[in-house]
């Protein structure tokens, strides 16, 4: 007997649940659509939206923290020490800039938009904007060059520092052959910095 009852119950349930479902979909015919017609209507992004990176080079001091923090090594930074005579200015947070940033490349195609590069920056010059429409036709156009120095200027800076180092080095040799008063303080400083070499290439290395 229960097989017969089961048979009729299933039929009844089938009809009833179908009608319930139909009522739900019919009601939804009159619910306004939730679609935004892109590109005519765009969704407003919240202020914390994590999209394309931007670097404000006025504030960059070339500390390499962002490159070190990146998990996919998409930031490449090269800096050149500035001569004592040059004045690079001050960042908006009050720090004096001492390094020429000759190369600041971000491969936005490699970037995983994790935002790990933003907190370590001491001057808050790198941050994520809300720009998400930046497709390019060529992959190398996705490598953004933020450095404000042209390649020629970069070469010029490197040569300047190179010759300045050579000049101080020869002066050091010359003065080293003569007995001299205790001016070891400045000399050792010059000697120490010349050992590092004029150009420091710092890439985003993860093994720190």
């Amino acid at each position, binding site marked *: 007997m229960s097989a017969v009852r089961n048979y009729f119950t*299933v039929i009844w*349930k*089938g009809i*009833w*649940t*179908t009608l*319930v*479902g139909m009522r*739900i*979909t019919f009601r*939804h015919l009159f619910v306004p659509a*939730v679609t935004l017609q892109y590109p005519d209507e765009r969704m407003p*992004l*919240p202020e*914390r*939206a*994590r999209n394309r990176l931007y670097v404000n080079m006025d504030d960059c001091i070339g500390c390499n923290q962002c490159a070190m*923090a*990146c*998990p996919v090594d998409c930031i490449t930074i090269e800096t050149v020490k500035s001569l004592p005579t040059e004045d690079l200015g001050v960042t908006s947070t009050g720090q004096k800039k001492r390094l020429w940033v000759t190369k600041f490349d971000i491969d936005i195609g490699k970037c*995983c*938009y*994790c*935002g*790990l590069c933003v*907190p370590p920056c001491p001057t808050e010059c790198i941050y*994520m904007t809300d720009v998400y429409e930046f497709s390019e036709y060529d992959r190398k156009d996705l490598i953004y060059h933020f450095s404000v120095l042209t390649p020629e200027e970069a070469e010029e800076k490197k040569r300047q520092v190179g010759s300045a180092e050579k000049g101080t080095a020869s002066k050091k040799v010359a003065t080293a052959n003569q007995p001299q008063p205790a001016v070891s303080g400045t000399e050792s400083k010059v000697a120490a910095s010349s050992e590092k070499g004029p150009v420091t290439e710092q890439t985003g290395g*993860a*093994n*720190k």
Partner: protein
Amino acid sequence: MAELRTEEMVLNMGPQHPSTHGVLRVELVVDGEVVVDAVPHIGYLHRCFEKHAEAMTYQQVVPYCDRMDYLSSMSNDFGYVLAVEKLLKIEVPERVQYIRVIMAELQRIASHLVAVGTYGLDIGAFTPFLYCFRDREKILDLFEMTCGARLLYNYMWPGGLSHDIPPQFVEKTKQFIKEFRPTIVELNNLLTYNEIFVKRTANIGVLPADVAINYGASGPTLRGSGVNWDLRRNDPYSIYDRFDFDVVVGKGEMGTVGDCWDRHIVRMREMEQSLRIIEQAIDNIPDGDVKAAIPKRVRPPVGEVYFRTETPRGELGYYIVSDGSGNPYRVKARAPSFVNLSLLPEISRGYLIADMIAIIGSIDIVLGDVDR
């Protein structure tokens, strides 16, 4: 009379199939219509998470953790940062704990919405999918307002969070809860209790409780078979022991215990329970600084830790070995979908080919989690 030759045929549900939830190849050995064996072939999405983790600092591993089970990345991060904090032996502020639980539960709802929606799509009901995704968008908006990303958050950091919740988060979450409760009812009416859906999923892919435990299944797959095991209750982590929620267990309402319908209803009801947890937590978030306990350099002492959490797919465990340096020596992730997928041959024996789709969909695997 001559003997009829019946040979078994090998079919391939290839890596590209609309219903395998990712790049999964299932090799079916069928005898006519009946499935004799179903062998999953995985590895199409292997991205060497564990090897990458050895080269990153502890902080940098978090974005990689996100990408394992990409549909519930908050939960992945949660397990990892809890493991690292256990290694470092640091206590995070209360505010961080509360926000983490809220985010994890919101993520659970979002992930179950995807599971339910795509399951309906596999069975042939096109509309619940859209309703589920419409509500999931609201959750993703909440996440975007907090940390800026919609899918892969990098939100939970060892020692705290990347951003504090914005001022409108609490109110928007409450509004979401209010709007979402009727949606669950609607989804149940439209999909779960629909007789055709019941006929397609009840008594299909029955997973007995002892088989589930032997295979190491976890999450809704295990609870659908009637086993009352939820890590948030049985091995509580973070502040889950403070909240009052029920562990949903399948009871065989529409068929046998442990069939596909049970796993589905466990997911639907877990969404309601997550709403309960969020309601309890959202009003009581204490004040504090979410970045107070974040160490400058994460350099745990030499040691190892295994920490497990309950993600929407099951038990996600992290086994971290530290050698004292800034990079972990080994990070192993015990992925729930990997273990749950191993059940597939066991539960699909004897059913029709047409049921394979229902069975695979009910285990709710994400290939990012299976292959890591």
